[in-house]
């Protein structure tokens, strides 16, 4: 059965580069779990032959939201779509964040576009004490903080240039009370993820990390998005993007 198109219900410009889409598609909205992503056709031309993976930010009734950052040709073309038009979106795809019943005190550590799937997870992991650490490059980049606060999480913000919150890397901030967490969830730029994973491993704390790889099919058929794990070669689009930090070897 063919997937249904996603109708653009609303478009919200968060700042110069980040745009939120509210998309209507009951199949995706009803099946999505935090950490999963969708694969978006960014234009109707075959000049760009690949879809673009974007995390699901949340779901509400028959809708789901995504936030995309304009970085290249695909996301630029995505920004040409208007309210009321339809997008060809495949999803939900991949495996998201999971939590065991015993995980009570947890931390989220996010940076840049890695923030979005974590917000979704924070809104779903209701019965937990959540510390939510967010790193931005500067004040201008800060977004959706209110939304994170609404999940009930304690929010800690750092900026690389000190223009808001803690001045420095988010890893410094979160490692202060590291011992208290049952589980830590990470999604952000690779250097940040590596720094966090190193700290967690040192303290023997469990966690999950969402990885990013360039994708072809997005469903596990082309083997393009490989990542080595202790269980052998896995694929970010199908076996991930979320992996246990104990399972993965992060790239150089």
């Amino acid at each position, binding site marked *: 059965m063919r997937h249904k198109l996603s109708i653009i219900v609303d478009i919200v410009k968060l700042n110069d580069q980040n745009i939120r889409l509210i998309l209507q598609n009951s199949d995706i909205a009803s099946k999505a779990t935090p950490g999963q992503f969708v694969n978006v056709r960014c234009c109707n031309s075959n000049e760009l032959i690949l879809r673009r993976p974007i995390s699901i930010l949340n779901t509400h009734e028959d809708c789901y939201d995504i936030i995309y950052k304009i970085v290249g040709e695909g996301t630029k073309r995505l920004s040409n779509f208007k309210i009321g038009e339809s997008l060809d979106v495949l999803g939900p795809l991949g495996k998201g964040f999971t939590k065991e019943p015993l995980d009570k005190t947890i931390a989220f550590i996010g940076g840049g576009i890695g923030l979005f799937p974590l917000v979704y997870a924070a809104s779903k992991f209701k019965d937990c004490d959540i510390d939510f650490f967010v790193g931005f490059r500067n004040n201008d980049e800060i977004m959706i903080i209110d939304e994170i606060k609404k999940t009930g999480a304690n929010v800690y913000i750092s900026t690389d240039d000190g223009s808001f919150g803690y001045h420095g890397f988010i890893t410094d901030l979160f490692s202060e009370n590291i011992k208290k967490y049952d589980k830590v969830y990470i999604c952000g730029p690779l250097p940040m993820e590596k720094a966090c994973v190193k700290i967690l491993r040192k303290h023997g704390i469990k966690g999950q990390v969402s990885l990013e*790889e*360039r994708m*072809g*099919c997005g*469903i596990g*058929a*082309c083997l393009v998005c*490989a990542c080595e794990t202790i269980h052998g070669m896995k694929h970010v689009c199908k076996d991930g993007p979320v992996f246990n930090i104990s399972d993965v070897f992060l790239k150089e």
Partner: protein
Amino acid sequence: MLKPNLSITIGDVTLNNPIITASGTFGFGREYGEYIDLNQLGGIAVKGLTLEPRLGNKTPRIAETPSGILNSVGLENPGVKAFIKNEIPFLTQYDSKIIANIAGSTVDDYLKMVEILNDTLVDLFEINLSCPNVREGCLAFGSSKDGVYRVTKAIKEIAKKPIIIKLTPNVTDITSIALGAQEGGADAISLINTITGMKIDIKTKKPVLHNNTGGLSGPCIRPIAVRMVHQVYQTVDIPIIGMGGITNLEDALEFFIAGASAVMIGTYHFMDPYVSEKVTIDLLKYLVDNNISDIKQLIGSLILHE
């Protein structure tokens, strides 16, 4: 009008229809099986297999280019034995023929794999003499008539299933290579595999692919593929399986008219998971609408100018 005949025969194996999914783009069928009915396909060419499991190349393994992609997967696969154990039972549930795509570094590798696969439920062998993403063997064989002839002949002597020789387009004269395959006893020829290319990230000054170069596929290569199918059709008598950038029925028809007895669809699955099923359905409709009772009437129906 009766239902047109879509079936085509390679060696002694008959496919229900001439639409096949291309090796490396369709896994072992499971994933796209969530989107389409695998029974609708003429055949499934599985991910290229090697004797031993392979991890493939480092990532990034894909880069987007104008109307195409470069890939450098480098034959990541579980090895032929795991394939037999884990994938064949799944694939035999369906009507579509199982095409084992195999690649080796030496002639011996190919022969061992064929021996191992001979007594399985695989229907056809596709001998990959054209993978640009691994360092040894494979492409080297495929670049000369003699290399192709030797590998083909050796395999044909022991193969219990029809063999399809998959050719690389990275050659000066595709027709002589194709003749090598025919003279070696190939039951069919498939072409084209990917064309070697490179994309550079101008910010980092590094190639986008970790393997530096990769194989170009997708609509951008279609004119080259159609030309080569036409040339090879004028040269050999065995069936040709054409591929390269097929996105819809119209594209597939170009290949049939040029001389392909069947087509494979690869890259475009990434954009449209339904593409192969859709082309199958549209092809049937096209034959009915145009009063063509047998797909064979279309094959090689090209009318050259002059």
